[in-house]
């Protein structure tokens, strides 16, 4: 019995002893040994990583404590994208100026006939000019965000430049919508005429007759060059629209990494498309005799049409002739 009791006591004391010793042993562990450490966290981050944690305010984005990679985007936006945009525009203007000096205005070789053919009806012209006017304001207000601070701000001062840019932003935000509507309209109206075919290869082989006087490769309603412009406008316009809407509604678009991605695509697409459109405006106005009428009055001179869109003229005339045939003469 006594033996049993002493056994019990020893085991009890053992348990007690352990219970006493355990916290002491723990207390000797430095409580900060496992503490998070900024240097270690940063080193462990891969690219695109953030130091993040729990936050008691409702905005979950506020839980990101440090996002070192944001500085990479700052350098990209603040420097690289600016350079690309500026040189895309200046480069294209310089190229066109050179082209004008060498080739001059592209004339109608056969002279004007005085006879007119309808090329673009009212709906087509309405769609075109809605697209064009909104695009130009969007492009200029966008460009202002890039070079305005170096070109305009020193001239008009910070106050006036702030007001101007604020108006530019409002215009940019609101005109994006009619631009998108016009983009869809243009797509629907002209897609059938812009499917690439064999005629385009020949047109491209002959350089579109742009470089040499008197060379006029055949083309339907739109030649290969115009088809390229069409698809550039559609693809670029769609990319601009999508990324633009994301930038308008950042809360829906995601995290700052997403915003940065959309902004980069938006800026690059805008630079490339603006350069393309500058060339388009050139050839549609001062670059080629008789071209503007197509989008102005909608009617072009027959000789212009025969030189630049021979197959289309045949189509139109053929259709007219066919119409004539089915109508009995009176």
């Amino acid at each position, binding site marked *: 019995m006594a033996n049993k009791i002493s056994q019990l006591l020893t085991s009890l004391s053992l348990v007690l002893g352990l219970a006493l010793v355990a916290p002491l042993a723990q207390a000797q562990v430095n409580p900060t040994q496992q503490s998070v450490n900024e240097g270690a966290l940063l080193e462990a981050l891969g690219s695109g990583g953030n130091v993040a944690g729990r936050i008691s305010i409702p905005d979950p984005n506020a839980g990101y*404590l440090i996002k070192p990679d944001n500085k990479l985007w700052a350098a990209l936006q603040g420097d690289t994208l600016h350079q690309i945009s500026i040189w895309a525009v200046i480069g294209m203007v310089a190229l066109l100026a050179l082209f004008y000096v060498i080739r001059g205005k592209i004339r109608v070789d056969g002279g004007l006939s005085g006879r007119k053919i309808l090329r673009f009806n009212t709906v087509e012209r309405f769609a075109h000019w809605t697209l064009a006017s909104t695009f130009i304001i969007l492009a200029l207000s966008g460009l202002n965000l890039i070079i305005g601070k170096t070109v305009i701000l020193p001239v008009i001062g910070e106050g006036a430049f702030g007001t101007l840019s604020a108006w530019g*932003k*409002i215009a940019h935000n609101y005109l994006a919508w009619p631009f998108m509507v016009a983009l869809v309209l243009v797509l629907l109206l002209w897609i059938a005429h812009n499917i690439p075919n064999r005629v385009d290869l020949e047109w491209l082989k002959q350089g579109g007759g742009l470089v040499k006087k008197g060379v006029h490769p055949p083309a339907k309603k739109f030649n290969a060059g115009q088809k390229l412009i069409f698809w550039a406008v559609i693809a670029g316009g769609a990319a601009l629209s999508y990324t633009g809407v994301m930038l308008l509604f950042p809360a829906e678009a995601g995290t700052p990494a997403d915003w940065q991605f959309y902004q980069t695509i938006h800026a690059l697409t805008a630079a490339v498309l603006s350069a393309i459109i500058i060339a388009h405006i050139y050839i549609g106005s001062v670059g080629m005799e008789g071209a503007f009428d197509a989008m102005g009055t909608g009617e072009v001179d027959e000789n212009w049409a025969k030189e630049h869109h021979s197959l289309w003229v045949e189509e139109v005339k053929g259709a007219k002739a066919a119409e004539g045939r089915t109508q009995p003469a009176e």
Partner: protein
Amino acid sequence: MARMKFLCDADRCIECNACVTACKNEHEVPWGINRRRVVTINDGLPGERSVSMACMHCTDAPCAAVCPVSCFYTTDDGVVLHNKDTCIGCGYCAYACPFGAPQYPQTANFGTRGKMDKCTYCSGGPEPDMSQAEYVKYGSNRLAEGKLPLCAEMCSTKSLLAGDGDIIAEIYRERVITRGYGSGAWGWRTAYGETVTV
């Protein structure tokens, strides 16, 4: 001139959020905006740490690099401030800031953001010091009154330090040496390209 910085000694921060509240009250910060916030890393795990963070007033500030209207300026004290009259609320500074400092008071239709708001290091804006116009737009200008930022001044554990960068770095260094550990000068590498070495 001093180069003002913040340093949060996370080994002292008890996540009381008093700095957040004091800042909101001092500057009448608009609803929904927290110029300062406290983030807890490894919450609930051994060795968790809380860090109080606001604008770090970076060297070569990324926000200033991307602002399309150049409305940022750095004061003689190294504080990064901006002009709300010029700001167009484009959001770029919020994309660029590594610390999530820039915020926007309202969003209207088609994503129109209001004027950006962020920590001013309690030093107002471009308006005349301590004027009503400055107070309405940016809050109080304690630096002009000869005081330091309120968040750090009232921190009960003196975890959050504000003042000349060299001096607060020295205080932190002494603390780390005395107690034998430190989780680092949070944000310093990213904001200033250097950290406090012990």
